[in-house]
């Protein structure tokens, strides 16, 4: 666990000591964005290009609370 060190707070944030849980909580609790490019082709001719962006996230973090 990364504990704050008296005398250094406010000057140094040392990310090397953060835990896996902290990293996941800080960076992934709001989900991640996944992107993909899809090209539909026929006879080597590109016909349709799709750029997809997906938000991968726990539903209860993004849905309005009344829907939970």
């Amino acid at each position: 666990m990364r504990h704050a060190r008296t005398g250094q707070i406010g000057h140094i944030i040392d990310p090397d000591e953060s835990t896996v849980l902290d990293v996941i909580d800080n960076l992934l609790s709001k989900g991640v964005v996944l992107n993909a490019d899809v090209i539909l082709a026929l006879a080597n001719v590109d016909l349709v290009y799709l750029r997809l962006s997906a938000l991968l996230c726990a539903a209860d973090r993004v849905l309005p609370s009344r829907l939970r």
Partner: protein
Amino acid sequence: MPLYVFALVDAAPRTVGRGLSAAVALRKVTGGYAAVERRADVPPLEFGTLKAHEQVIERLASLAPAVVPVRFGTLLTVDELDAALEDREEELREAFDLVRGRLQFTWRATAAGTPPRARRQTAPARSGTDYLRRAARAAHPAPPPSFRRARSLGRLAAAERFAPATAIIPGALYHLVDRSRAEAYASAAADVRAHAPGLSWSGPFAAYAFAPELL
């Protein structure tokens, strides 16, 4: 080439250093700056990448007064970035005002027996007032009693937020603390921890838990 966005900041430091695979640049956007690097695709979801992303955020937090981290994996074209923030200057300014000069500390209950509560069927609201009360409770769930000692440190914090447990992340209580009070907070936190072995704390971090979702 698209821009991979790390965070929004209120001022542009002279240099930020390296990002995931290229130098981090500060791009002027409505109401502030976006810390970005040019990148063709979203970085892989690996722990090493997450750590590198976090290091950029923490470096920014040590260089800029106000840092609003954005969701991991945010890859936008220049036009998309500008369009996303075009009408949100007020929202961004409020976010900067909240986190400026402040650090986040995180508390978690480590004692066993605090699994996420099972979803349960509830009876329909009996009245409009009942519905609104339920909605308010759902929007702002109260921390369980196990966080009582940690909550006592709220007097040293500028803001407090509780996130209930999910299937993979335990519930957490977040305090946003002025840098000038951070040493006093850390000292008080050590005392609380000594008397509450079921609690653990970590930090300081950038204000991840207090950043609105702007992108």
